[in-house]
């Protein structure tokens, strides 16, 4: 069986490489230990400057509340709006809360009082979330302050409907829980894509591919022998990632681990197959590298990994239909966070099988033993 000899060769070459085995081990460990802390969309430490025109106790209490919130940093209390605006313009603060002169009086007599919030929305996400948090803080404040008043018959200002949100699947809204499965996808995508892309073209540069092309080895066997090591490596790397997610972040899949491995086998075949295709068409490592960079970015940005697919324009959503990471990431989040079962993942499963069939065939056909 020729495959066996080719596999021996691939594994020996991999382990004899002074750099690759270390990379394959260090890469997932670093990504899993470092990135979850950095890649967070929780907006914290929003700088707030208060412009206070009132000297009453209610205004003072509102300021204290802002100061003690974990989301805000109180950058100072001014008496002049213009000064605060200058600070905002120089990016020394992110938001201005202006408390009017009759704040305390209107609150006690009318049961409601306006507060103006101006926010720097250059980063629209930060702006929107900051405004949201400030709104929530003010609501809470009015509930606390007016709670007593309601008892005294001032019911007009009391909210009639209170919305209680229950966060399913990620109860503490921890962004890490959302990102960790996505990071595993990134690790597999990068390792499983780049290494094969550099492999065949590497043999072309060294000239050893000639010695293979001159033998009667079949294209299928050759490509298969190139793929299997990436399967093994990918599944090992995935296991390391899952172990770290559990040990460091206490995150274990809610669903069946077997589903994750089944999908991983399919996913690695897709990305490694793609890498081999790029390698087959490239003449130099440099060329293969740049082509891979180009596609990797598209794969990642169009997968729903970082931004939700549903917010993309229709044409972009149609394009994601052929993007393998899209299905893999959907599966990962579903199994990890929601405890999804195979029956819930039929679309993703068959989509990956179809993509594998196309890319696998293409990888074999694009390897040409004859010019």
């Amino acid at each position: 069986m020729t495959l066996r000899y080719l596999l021996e060769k691939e594994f020996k070459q991999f382990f004899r490489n002074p750099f690759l085995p270390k990379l394959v081990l260090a890469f997932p460990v670093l990504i899993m230990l470092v990135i979850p802390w950095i890649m967070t969309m929780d907006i914290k430490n929003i700088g707030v400057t208060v412009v206070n025109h009132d000297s009453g106790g209610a205004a003072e209490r509102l300021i204290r509340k802002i100061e003690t919130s974990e989301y805000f940093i109180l950058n100072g209390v001014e008496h002049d709006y213009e000064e605060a605006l200058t600070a905002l313009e120089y990016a020394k603060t992110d938001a201005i809360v202006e408390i009017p002169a009759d704040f305390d009086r209107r609150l006690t007599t009318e049961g409601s009082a306006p507060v103006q919030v101006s926010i720097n929305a250059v980063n629209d996400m930060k702006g929107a979330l900051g405004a949201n948090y400030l709104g929530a803080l003010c609501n809470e404040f009015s509930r606390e302050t007016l709670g007593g008043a309601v008892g005294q018959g001032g019911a007009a200002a009391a909210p009639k409907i209170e919305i209680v949100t229950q966060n399913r699947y990620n109860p503490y809204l921890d962004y890490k829980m959302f990102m960790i499965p996505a990071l595993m996808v990134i690790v597999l995508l990068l390792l499983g894509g780049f290494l094969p892309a550099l492999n065949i073209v590497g043999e072309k540069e060294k000239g050893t591919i000639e010695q293979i092309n001159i033998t009667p080895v079949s294209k299928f066997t050759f490509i298969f022998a190139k793929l299997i090591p990436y399967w093994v490596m990918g599944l090992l790397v995935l296991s390391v990632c899952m172990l770290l997610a559990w040990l460091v972040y206490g995150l274990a899949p809610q669903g069946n681990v077997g589903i994750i491995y089944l999908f991983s086998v399919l996913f690695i075949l897709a990305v490694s197959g793609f890498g081999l295709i790029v390698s087959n068409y490239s003449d130099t490592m440099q060329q293969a590298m740049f082509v891979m960079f180009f596609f990797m970015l598209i794969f990642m940005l169009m997968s729903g990994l970082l931004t939700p697919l549903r917010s993309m324009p229709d044409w972009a959503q149609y394009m994601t239909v052929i993007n393998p990471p899209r299905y893999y990431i959907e599966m990962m989040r579903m199994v990890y966070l929601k405890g999804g079962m195979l029956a819930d993942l039929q679309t993703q499963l068959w989509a990956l099988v179809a993509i594998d069939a196309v890319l696998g065939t293409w990888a074999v056909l694009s390897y040409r033993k004859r010019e």
Partner: protein
Amino acid sequence: MREEHVIEAEGLTKMFGTFTAVDHITFDVKKGEIFGFLGANGAGKTTAMRMLCGLSKPTAGRATVAGCDIVREPERVKRNIGYMSQKFSLYEDLQVWENIRLFGGIYGVAEREMAQKTDDMLRRLGIYGEKNTPVKRLPLGWKQKLAFSVAIFHEPKVVFLDEPTGGVDPRARRQFWEMIYEAADRGITVFVTTHYMDEAEYCDRVSIMVDGRIDALDSPGGLKRQFGVGSMDEVFYKLAREAKRGE
């Protein structure tokens, strides 16, 4: 029955765009022969050889190697030939025995014979002590001898050698040619390109390519008589002078 031909080429042509690298060459190589394939740099030797090995598809013409059509059944051709290129191409990061095992395995040498055959070969080459040495640490002369042995490990009908002795010292070249003779004695046909005219003298027959065509083909003695000169060197100069192509 006429003499058995291992290689038969007829009007074999390769064009790259408008450039004709190999221009309608026709020749035969007999079984067991050492056939020298000469020509200046850029004359089209390597391209012609790559077509015969099934590595490159001819633009026109036909050829058979070991009875297999190189256009229609290149993979069958490959089962019957060995090949060693001027660009040394064993796996540098694999050890000596691992390279032998890899190519032996690909050509279907049985697992149980592998170890014995490997040891025999290494002893014959006198490099048994280097069995576990990575190929990249062997001196060039040894590498080339090893590459040649690997190319004929599966007893092919023809072995193609593309400038096999480039860059090695005269003693290693001489040893290499002894190996070529041994192979030819065992019935393996040798098809060899070279730039060394003393090596051309060792061949049974020699063809000289000029600008993609075969301008002369005969035994070294016959060529010298035909051109009325005393050495292959002078034959080569006479022909190469007419070349229009630059380097």
